[in-house]
């Protein structure tokens, strides 16, 4: 289990993440939501060991993530950040194969190849697996990176705004894939999302942040209601129910 305990990160005098404590429930999709500058990505960066916290700690199986050996950690937790600029001549399949690095150090076994094939299948990348990454569109590249993370086959998958450069079709495809990873393979997904409707429809739990502080943490339906949302986003957000999904209709919030 991942436990975040009283975590604080300061940039200059500003507390970008301020005394946040959360337990990530295994076998769920947990979304981090909140306005710009809420500290969602910073929080995720500290869980992923990209950034050191100023105070507080993140525990994976009761021991501090800073104390984990890099390679052992990489077999448990994988992380994908927003922007991925590559300066390398790499095919899609080669990129996805990097997901197996923690296990085979670049010499792929037959088992590794199976995981790579599976990841390609999950992300529907069959027809472009031999293309060079720098010849792909932003969305295709993003899907290739997500496939790499899937091939890494970790219990925890952390994603920082994976839908940022994707169209509706592929956004839905990725969220469905994540749902499948959780339901079928028992993975735990933590995801920073900008679109609250994707958070509402696909996640089990939501962590709402604002100005670095935790506003609310709970099951999706406890968060997706007009009262809580207005507390987070400081605007009236009507919520409508559709086929059992709660949809936030925020486009014209101040009309009435």
């Amino acid at each position: 289990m991942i436990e975040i305990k009283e975590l604080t990160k300061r940039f200059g005098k500003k507390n970008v993440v301020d005394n946040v404590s959360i337990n990530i429930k295994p076998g769920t999709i947990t979304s981090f939501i909140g306005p710009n500058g809420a500290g969602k990505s910073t929080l995720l960066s500290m869980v992923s060991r990209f950034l050191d916290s100023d105070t507080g700690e993140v525990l994976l199986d009761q021991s501090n993530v800073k104390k984990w050996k890099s390679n052992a950690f990489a077999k448990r937790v994988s992380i994908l950040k927003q922007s991925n600029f590559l300066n390398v001549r790499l095919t899609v399949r080669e990129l996805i194969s990097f997901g197996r690095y923690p296990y085979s150090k670049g010499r792929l076994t037959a088992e590794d190849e199976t995981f790579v094939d599976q990841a390609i299948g999950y992300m529907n990348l069959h027809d472009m697996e031999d293309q060079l990454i720098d010849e792909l569109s932003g969305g295709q590249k993003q899907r290739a990176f997500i496939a790499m993370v899937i091939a890494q086959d970790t219990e925890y998958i952390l994603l920082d705004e994976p839908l940022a450069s994707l169209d509706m079709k592929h956004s839905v495809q990725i969220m469905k894939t994540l749902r499948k990873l959780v339901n079928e393979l028992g993975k735990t997904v933590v995801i920073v999302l900008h679109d609250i409707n994707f958070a509402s429809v696909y996640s089990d739990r939501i962590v709402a942040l604002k100005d670095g502080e935790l506003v609310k943490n709970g099951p999706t339906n406890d968060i997706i209601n007009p009262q809580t949302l207005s507390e987070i986003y400081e605007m009236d957000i009507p919520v409508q129910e559709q086929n059992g999904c709660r949809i936030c209709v925020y486009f014209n919030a101040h009309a009435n």
Partner: protein
Amino acid sequence: MQRNRKRLIFLAVLAIISVLLYAFYDIKGGFDYAFPKRVTRIAAMMVTGIAISYATVAFHTITQNRILTPSIMGMDAMYEVVQTLIFFLAGSTSIWVVNNYLNFGAALIAMVLFALILYRFLFRTKKYPIYLLLLIGIILGTLLGNLVTFLQVLIDPVEYMSLQTFLFASFMDVKAEILYIAIAILVVACIYGYRIMGQLNVMALGRENAISLGINYDRMLMNILILASVLIATSTALVGPITFLGLLVANLSYQYLVTYKHSTLILGASLLSIIALVGGQFIVEHLFELRTTLSVIINFIGGIYFIYLLLKESRAVK
């Protein structure tokens, strides 16, 4: 890939041809006199070529930038400072100039220490200081360069003439005894360098992806910077500043060999630098009859290629 293998073999054949040509072409006078001298030069060129190729490709990977040379860290400038200070303080007939071991050792140790102190200082204060490091490297390089110019103005003109021979890369008078030390350093560095090739491949994906894939990035960054510094320092102390060559061969290698694998890229760059150095030296000795130096030719061709790279990159941005 099959195509890369063929291309590497082609480069290897070219390298062997240029080595054989340089070793045996038109040996006048005593074979016993000329041949060992040529072999020493060839060995020096191989050491330099491999060291610079590895250092440059690794440096490009950790900076995610392909138009930098490791000399941006101010190491060439540090070399010039050491040699100029030696001539300024001790003079051209002092033991620091006459004794090859001392001169080589002083230059090597000064450059490596300079790099180590810089890294220690930066890595203690910041987590991922690569851009700050580059910036400080450039500033220190300029500062040291000015110091060198200042000292050279004060130096006796005759001393200055003999100092000049140290400040331009030359393979003509490489001393065999230093060469052995350089080879020993290169072998040790390359054994370590070979072992971390897999990690270099992952680090090319950027800091965050590399950490996610289980690389201890910040420690590896430090190790690779030190490795690159040792390689550059060795080649510079052996023959003088010639790091510009690295930029040339590394980029040719990226273009010629379509792969992400550092083993292939570095091997390609090494073969290319052996072809450039040995072939270039052949042209200098037999075509120009030593009226020019190898570094002039390499800087000339390298400069043109560099401008081409800049134009190409600016077109790619549009």
